[in-house]
């Protein structure tokens, strides 16, 4: 094997060539992000080994299975209604680890700080991280700090990584979605994205929507206690529920159908989406998951979710079907059907 990416072996080099530089959409969690992973990172790092892309990687070690995940946080502004970059950095990685069914045991935290960042700001962020880690019952065990020149890091960036232990008998990954599985959504969507957007320069608008940032490993634990054989879990962050559903449909090569009317959208989120021309299904969440559960486990999982704070409003939004493999179809409130696709990059407010 060559020790650099084999350009000729790329399964589809064309899309990357469309942009000869990184554009902002490459980080948006949509198609452009997916293409980077699929055509650059996976071929370079996995060298032909079978790989299944999931929120966390899992691997067997003596005595059990570990889950490992990492995520970087570059949110602007640093503080927003319902949270800040600090609790996001803890909850986000806790959730990525939890989506393999694992209970997180430790996190790392890497700080990239901009010269001139007020110490009070850093202090507030660190306090928020500590509080989030305490609430999640996960320790921040190791870390690193770098400082870059003024103007280079939007105040601060944080990277966290987390490890966790996957309970025996749990096998959760996207390719396990099967026809007949119910698709569960753990609660109302769109709050994090709208809360952040409403405070971003150039888009400020008045809303009382707060980020839903929350750790989900407790919810996952009670779901697994109720029913061990959950097929897929995914936290619906960047790209929203749409991206989660589309990635799972592609990964498992199954069709998905969901009822638009079944998806809970808080009125204030619906209003913001309406005037910005956005789709709530595409907006980032930081405390919501989708679960694919076979029919025999559905009642048990739903009951367990409803008794947990993070799953009180859980509902079934759709099901996995044999038809149209790889494609997600929405049934509209009026009973028509339409194909739902992963957003390309960033969500763009429409002109009118």
């Amino acid at each position, binding site marked *: 094997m060559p020790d650099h990416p084999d350009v000729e072996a790329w399964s589809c080099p064309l899309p990357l060539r469309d942009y000869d530089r990184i554009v902002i959409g490459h980080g948006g969690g949509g198609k452009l992000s997916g293409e980077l992973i699929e055509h650059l990172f996976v071929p370079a790092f996995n060298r032909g080994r079978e790989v299944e892309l999931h929120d966390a990687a899992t691997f067997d070690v003596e005595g059990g299975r570990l889950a490992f995940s990492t995520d970087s946080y570059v949110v602007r502004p640093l503080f927003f209604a319902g949270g800040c970059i600090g609790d996001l950095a803890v909850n986000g990685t806790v959730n990525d680890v939890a989506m393999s069914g694992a209970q997180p045991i430790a996190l790392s935290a890497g700080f990239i700080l901009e010269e001139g960042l007020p110490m009070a700001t850093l202090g507030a962020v660190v306090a928020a991280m500590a509080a989030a880690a305490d609430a999640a019952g996960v320790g921040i065990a190791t870390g690193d700090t770098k400082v870059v020149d003024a103007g280079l890091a939007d105040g601060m960036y944080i990277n966290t990584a987390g490890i966790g232990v996957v309970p025996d008998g749990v096998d959760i990954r996207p390719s396990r979605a099967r026809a007949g599985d119910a698709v569960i959504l753990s609660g109302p969507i769109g709050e994090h994205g709208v809360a952040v957007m409403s405070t971003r320069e150039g888009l400020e608008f008045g809303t009382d929507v707060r980020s839903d940032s929350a750790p989900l490993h407790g919810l996952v634990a009670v779901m697994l206690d109720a029913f061990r054989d959950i097929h897929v879990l995914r936290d619906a962050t960047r790209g929203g529920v749409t991206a989660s559903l589309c990635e799972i449909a592609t990964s498992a090569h199954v069709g998905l159908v969901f009822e638009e009317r079944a998806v809970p959208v808080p009125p204030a989120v619906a209003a913001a989406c309406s005037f910005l021309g956005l789709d709530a299904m595409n907006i980032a969440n930081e405390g919501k998951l989708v679960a694919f559960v076979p029919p025999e486990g559905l009642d048990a999982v739903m009951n367990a979710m409803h008794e947990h704070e993070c799953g009180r409003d859980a509902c079934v939004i759709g099901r996995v079907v044999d038809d149209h493999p*790889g*494609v997600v179809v929405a049934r509209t409130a009026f009973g028509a059907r339409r194909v739902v*696709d992963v957003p*390309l990059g960033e969500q763009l407010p429409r*002109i009118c």
Partner: protein
Amino acid sequence: MKYLDEFNDPELAASLFAEIERITTRPWAIMEVCGGQTHSIIRNGIDQLLPDTIELIHGPGCPVCVTPLGVIDKALEIASRPDVIFCSFGDMLRVPGSGRDLFQVKSEGGDVRVVYSPLDAVKLATDHPDRDVVFFAIGFETTAPANAMAVHLAARQELTNFSVLVSHVLVPPAIQAIASSPASRVDGFLAAGHVCSVMGTRQYGPLVERFGIPIVVTGFEPLDVLEGIRRVVAQLEAGTAVLENAYERVVSEEGNTPAQRMLDDVFEVCDRQWRGIGEIPASGWRLAPRYDDFNAELRFGVGAIDTPESDRCRSGEVLQGLIKPHQCEAFGTDCTPRSPLGATMVSSEGACAAYYQYRRLDAGPGVEVSLRQPAGAGSDRA
């Protein structure tokens, strides 16, 4: 949520569908002029649930789609300058000019910012006196008042670092161009409600009389659109052609007169190129000469840029209702939202993008290819 739930009610929609079905005896082709209406129709699947004999033709009312390539190239040129903060509505960033888009300009170091209101761009100019702030003032009569207000404010504040790149378009001349085209199949129009909220309904009476075609001023929520369709069909079946206002909660006959005065002050009517259609006489607004100091084309000397359109893209025929998006050979193969040939594939309001997004399942064999991509292949590759 007031005005969201009420106008999305499935039971009321079902009764409107039933009523349209009941009164329809013949085939009719109805054009919704506004891109927002197209979006609502496709997103909710309204076109799938109407009687087969009613055909909806998606009109030229997406401002992003009809902005000519030459203007976008001017925007790219201005946005590339190091001293410029270039402000735009979000969905203009992805519209390709000749070879690149504003996202790429941004990735190459251009300071390109998405704003929701042109007044935010004025504020940026106030906050950054050392930079040249340019706002990309596109759109129909709907967005024009805020854009005019931005220029007006900048003039009042005597800002010397604010300018606008104007490419406004007007709905009535477009309806006239479509209705007078020998190839037109349009039997009735849904006029764009928000345009009329600014301009009123008076401009449309003469069009109804001249072409003998019903025009119904229509809103954007699904029930608004259905009510507009019902009223057009009722007129067509009765053999009448009058102007009706089905969006009375927003639109009055005289419109927003203070906004109109502002528009008269800041803009003047001009001939305008429409992407995919060509030049339509007296179909646009440009900055009035008394505001030359705020004219970005003059300030940055980009007036001479003039770029021909792609000859593979049939968006002109789509915008005129002569073909459906999926009837274009390039649809879903060479032309996708990922790699658009024309602007109708770019904006989420564009007819081709709306079709691509929502209707690929049954759009035809050429499109199935893009659905059968295995996980290993890039989706919708060009």
